[in-house]
């Protein structure tokens, strides 16, 4: 039986939700506002009213090339996501539908790799990249981003796959489906919401990754994170320009998130209610 919710409670919860949402979104909003201020206004103190200048966007465009890092961001985030899914779907299938005694340990081990600070492995990774000629290359960085996000992708897919009744796959097998057909034609279509949300989340994570993308690139493979970092200045004012660069860098991913929010929410709550 549904619990009765009073109007007062509904309004209260709505306000609370709005406040939390605004708090989370506020840094982004303030960056956009700051990008429309002059440098003097930006550093003068807290204010929500900008003078409305677009000069910073013009300066950012004039000083640096936006298109190349933008394309690099697209290639790296999409490329690493596709690669991660290709590896993760069969892995998650194996763990969800053919678990062994060690499956849980493997899952925990994969997650544990995320607990190590990236800087701890900077030098070995750098030397490996140098040895194989992968420094400042899109291929190298795509592999790197795939590897660092792979544990999360496998975990998410594993969770989604566990919600799918194994009997359906068994039925497909009894009908003569090969393993490949079982994964591609039976499992994947049923897990589309989960796969889609994993894909979107991974794109967002790869787009925003700002340690390896700055450490392992110089000019050819540098994505938008490096583009933003280049506007920080040791002498002279830069907050407004930095905000303009940040806004330009996050705009594509914000738009993607906006249009795919239904899919994201659907995927993230997939299996929450049985």
């Amino acid at each position, binding site marked *: 039986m549904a619990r009765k919710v009073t109007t007062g409670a509904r309004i209260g919860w709505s306000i609370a939700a709005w406040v939390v949402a605004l708090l989370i979104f506020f840094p982004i909003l303030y960056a956009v506002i700051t990008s429309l201020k002059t440098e003097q206004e930006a550093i003068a103190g807290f204010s929500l009213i900008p003078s409305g200048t677009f000069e910073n966007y013009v300066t950012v465009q004039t000083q640096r090339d936006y298109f190349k890092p933008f394309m690099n961001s697209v290639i790296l985030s999409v490329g690493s996501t596709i690669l991660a899914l290709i590896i993760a779907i069969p892995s998650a299938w194996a763990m969800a539908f053919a678990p062994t005694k060690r499956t849980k340990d493997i899952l925990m081990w994969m997650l544990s790799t995320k607990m190590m600070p990236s800087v701890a492995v900077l030098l070995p990774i750098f030397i490996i990249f140098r040895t194989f000629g992968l420094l400042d290359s899109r291929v190298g960085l795509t592999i790197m981003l795939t590897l660092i996000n792979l544990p999360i992708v496998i975990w998410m897919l594993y969770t989604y796959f566990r919600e799918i009744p194994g009997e359906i796959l068994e039925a497909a097998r009894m009908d003569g489906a090969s393993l490949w057909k079982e994964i591609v034609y039976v499992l994947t279509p049923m897990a589309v919401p989960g796969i889609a949300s994993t894909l979107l989340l991974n794109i967002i994570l790869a787009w925003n990754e700002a340690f390896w993308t*700055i450490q392992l690139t*110089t000019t050819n493979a540098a994505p938008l994170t490096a583009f933003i970092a*280049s506007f920080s200045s040791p002498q*002279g004012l830069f907050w407004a320009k930095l905000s303009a660069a940040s806004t330009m860098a996050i705009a594509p991913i914000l738009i993607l998130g906006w249009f795919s929010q239904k899919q994201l929410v659907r995927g993230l709550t997939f299996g929450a209610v049985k």
Partner: protein
Amino acid sequence: MTLKTFLLGACSALAFVATTASAETLTIATVNNGDMVRMQGLTSEFTKANPDIEVNWVTLEENVLRERVTTDIAANGGQYDIVTIGNYEVPIWAKQQWLLPLEGLGDKYDMDDLLPAIRGGLSVEGKLYAAPFYGESAMIMYRKDLFEKAGLKMPESPTWEFIADAAKKTTDRANDISGICLRGKAGWGENMAFVSALNNSFGGRWFDENWKPQFDQPEWKASLQFYADLMKEAGPQGASSNGFNENLTLFQQGKCGMWIDATVAASFVSNPKDSKVADKVGYAIFPSKEGVSNHGNWLWSWNLAVPASSKKAEAAQKFISWATSKEYTQLVASKEGWANVPPGTRTSLYNTEDYKKEAAFAAPTLAAMQAADITKPTVKPVPYTGGQFVAIPEFQALGTTVGQLFSAVIAGQSTVDDALAAAQATATRDMTRAGYIK
């Protein structure tokens, strides 16, 4: 198409491909300073004169640049052919053989024209390891109108006693004007740059000849107490979070009677486009304490160097020679005006009449730079070089830790005595661990 035309076309195409293939690409790591951005814009002049060299720029945040370059050099990555580094790093990196000596700058490169103080800081055992792109010392920038109103006249060589008095007299809390704006934000290159120079001018030092920290000595107590009192009585609100950029804004908006900071700021505060007080600014040399002959010895330069891991050292030195030459200065002057040329590296610039006419801060800047000697930064003998910093690898971390302790004093969260005691303990521990104190 005749065979002859075809062959000619093919030869031209081959020649083009050969030229393109033989072009060397230099990767230059730099910071986002106005002068550096200007240099990037003028690079086409260099590549036009050197069609066999292409230039790629990597602009990074200052600390990220240090991390990236040190990783690259340590692992022999060879990603950068030229790096932009400060005069703090140059001697340290040169001694570790991370940089190549600049021996290929060419015959036309007038090395003797480089300001001696700057050149000295970039040389190890007589060899130049980095070429200065622009240099700076520190000086007083003050509001002539506020001084006049308060009946004050800036002396030729002001003392801290005069500065304290003038700061109090020009403070006007009702109109939100602070008598003095100084760095308070924690960091080895932020508040500690100022505080170290202040302490030098008070006769103090970071370490004695045996590397024993000196925070327990009366000079440190006097200088830090002076700084804390001055900021309390005549400094702006929230001074503990003000660095170069914050004070620049305050001064440009007419909120400071005085600002003591890097000489490079003079071109910002005197630019009517950004500064409300552009026509009211006077300049004077960094103060000294009565009875102590020392003006702080603040000296900084941004320099271009070739990392030992570069595989294109010859082309790299060619670029450095161009970017730090007298001809480059002329080029900037012709395109952007004399006030925008990179200052503080060459004597000839300060003999240029056009520059002196257009940049009112030229003479005080030169005076400030000539007064700075990083080879003898303090009155008492010391085992290190460096003015507003100590040129040892451990200084970045130690300077920042001590900077946090001193910033807490300005924020009112700690006392001078407590901060000095903590600084002494930290510095003693760090220097012992690093093997300086036996």
